[in-house]
């Protein structure tokens, strides 16, 4: 297993992004933090949704779980690194267990079940008022994480989110090139055949689900620390499940580079729409989704497929049902 030239190019791009705090305004810094967050979500989703071919809508579940596990630990005075570790552990173990159960379902059934997981977690968080603050939300004091000063905190959270992006990129590229990634590709193309040739499908799928959940949960913790206030409808929002899918579709389904560029393109679109029409932003976002699926189903990559020499990956037709 070795990284290819395109992988090093991706790393270079992401590394260059790290200069933002020294060259950009606070607004650019906020956008940069969002870019890192979205890229982490999209690349993580790609492990289960793109590489394995399971239409997961559980991103919001892991995001909210990570935000609350990390957020609660932060308010209790634990350091950020401990909160991140705990969120990652809880999400990993939870996704492993859940994966063994839920990944037996396919297609629509898996989609609905993964959607329901976020709903259940949201309601549980809502009703566990003593621990989570319930519908009142959870305040995470600024000084608990990044010291004093808003500008300093903004730089701090950009750099941590960027660090998480680097970590995720390395892990996801490793998965893509490793035996695990090969097994996942086998499962996507024909699960029964993969089972026959000795791929432990249940374990591989669950591991993919867990790896996907782990980074999303850590992003959730950082998000909670960054915005200082979380509430169940915010962090368990179904949009957190749908946006990564749209990003992956935008960039071209199945490749890590596609997810990365899709996240950047999506953020740009979202920001333009949001800046120009606050009231109608979700409707315009919906219109963009519809237009994308109708006219560019293979993503932006298909526009310049001659430039990016990369085998195009499609979801297996067998997973349609």
């Amino acid at each position, binding site marked *: 297993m070795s990284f290819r030239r395109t992988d090093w190019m991706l790393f270079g791009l992401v590394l260059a992004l790290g200069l933002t705090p020294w060259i950009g305004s606070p607004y650019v810094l906020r956008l940069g933090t969002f870019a890192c967050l979205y890229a982490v979500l999209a690349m993580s989703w790609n492990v289960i*949704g793109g590489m394995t071919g399971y*239409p997961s*809508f559980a991103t919001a579940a892991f995001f909210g779980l990570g935000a609350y596990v990390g957020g609660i630990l932060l308010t209790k005075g634990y350091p950020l690194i401990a909160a991140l570790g705990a969120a990652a552990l809880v999400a990993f173990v939870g996704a492993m267990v859940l994966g063994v*159960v*839920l990944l*037996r*379902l396919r*297609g*629509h*059934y898996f*989609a*609905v*079940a993964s*959607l*329901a*997981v976020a*709903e*259940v977690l949201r*309601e*549980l968080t*809502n*009703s566990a008022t003593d621990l989570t603050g319930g519908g009142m939300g959870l305040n995470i004091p600024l000084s608990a994480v990044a010291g004093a000063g808003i500008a300093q905190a903004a730089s701090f959270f950009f750099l941590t989110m960027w660090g998480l992006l680097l970590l995720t990129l390395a892990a996801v590229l490793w998965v893509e090139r490793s035996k695990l990634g090969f097994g996942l590709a086998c499962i996507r193309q024909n699960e029964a055949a993969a089972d026959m040739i000795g791929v432990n499908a249940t374990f591989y799928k669950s591991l993919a689900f867990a790896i996907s959940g782990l980074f999303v949960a850590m992003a959730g913790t950082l998000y909670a620390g960054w915005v200082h206030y979380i509430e169940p409808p915010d962090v368990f929002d*179904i949009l957190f499940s*749908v946006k990564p*899918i*749209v990003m992956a*579709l935008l960039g071209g*389904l199945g490749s890590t580079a596609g997810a990365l560029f899709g996240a950047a393109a999506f953020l740009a679109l979202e920001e333009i729409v949001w800046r120009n029409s606050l*009231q*109608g*932003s*979700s*409707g315009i*976002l*919906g*219109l*963009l*989704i*519809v237009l994308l*699926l*109708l006219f560019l*189903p293979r993503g932006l990559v298909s526009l310049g497929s001659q430039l990016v020499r990369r085998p195009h990956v499609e*979801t297996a*037709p067998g*997973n*349609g*049902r």
Partner: protein
Amino acid sequence: MFTLQIFLNGLVLGCLYACIASGFSLVWGVLNVINLMHGSFIVLGSYLAWGAYQSIGLSPWITLVIAAPLFYGLGWILQRGVLNRVITAPVLVTLTMTFGLDLMLNNAMLLAFQADYRKLNLDPPLGTLALGSVVVPVDRLIAMALALALTLVLYLILRQSRVGRAIIAVRLDRDAATLMGVRVPAIYAAAFGFGTAMAGCAGVLLAMIFPTSPVSSTAYLGKAFVVCVLGGLGSVPGAVLGGLLLGVVESFGAWAIGPEHAVTLSFALLIAFLIARPQGLLGRQGFE
């Protein structure tokens, strides 16, 4: 007697759930599309009933007659214009597509009606009916009866009419149906139209009972998911059985462990059914 009251409340709720879910189930079963717009169609139906009553004093049960063809047309156009183009794509694409359309519809409703909760109050109120110690509001009773009647109408359409038999044929075997001369895109549009009409009519009925707001659409959609999986895909009797089951379970659950856990309970039921019996209670393919 207390138990009987809870049971009856559950049944009333269950009939409405059946009406909500039968259209959703039809679309999922026949088109293989999870229609995330279903909740917003219901809310739109409620607004239609509210608007008709506020402006020209039209009773909800008369609005039903207008709502059905109106929503059928809306569904037909959406299917013909947009969804038929991606109907063969994997679930990821169709699901994201309906999500995008739902964002547009919901945003439009938010702009048009604001997020305030509105309630259709019949004037004069219909009062309540007391049977021994069990009390039922008359408007709920009417809504329940109409919901059951609508579901029965859908069942009869699928079972008796020419287009209904074609829908079932397409559901059973699309290729064979094509060979028998069924125009599949037209049948998809009809099925989606019926599903949308059921949602709109359910919305009209719900306007009599619950306050309406664009933000309630996800709650309705959640109910449709659960009932559909409980009852079995694409089966109208399954939707009725699933709806009644969910209504009763929710009523008793709200009483026993508190109403704040009702949603958790229904989704836990959904996941349990998906794992243990994914075909649902009455899930036999195309047996309408």
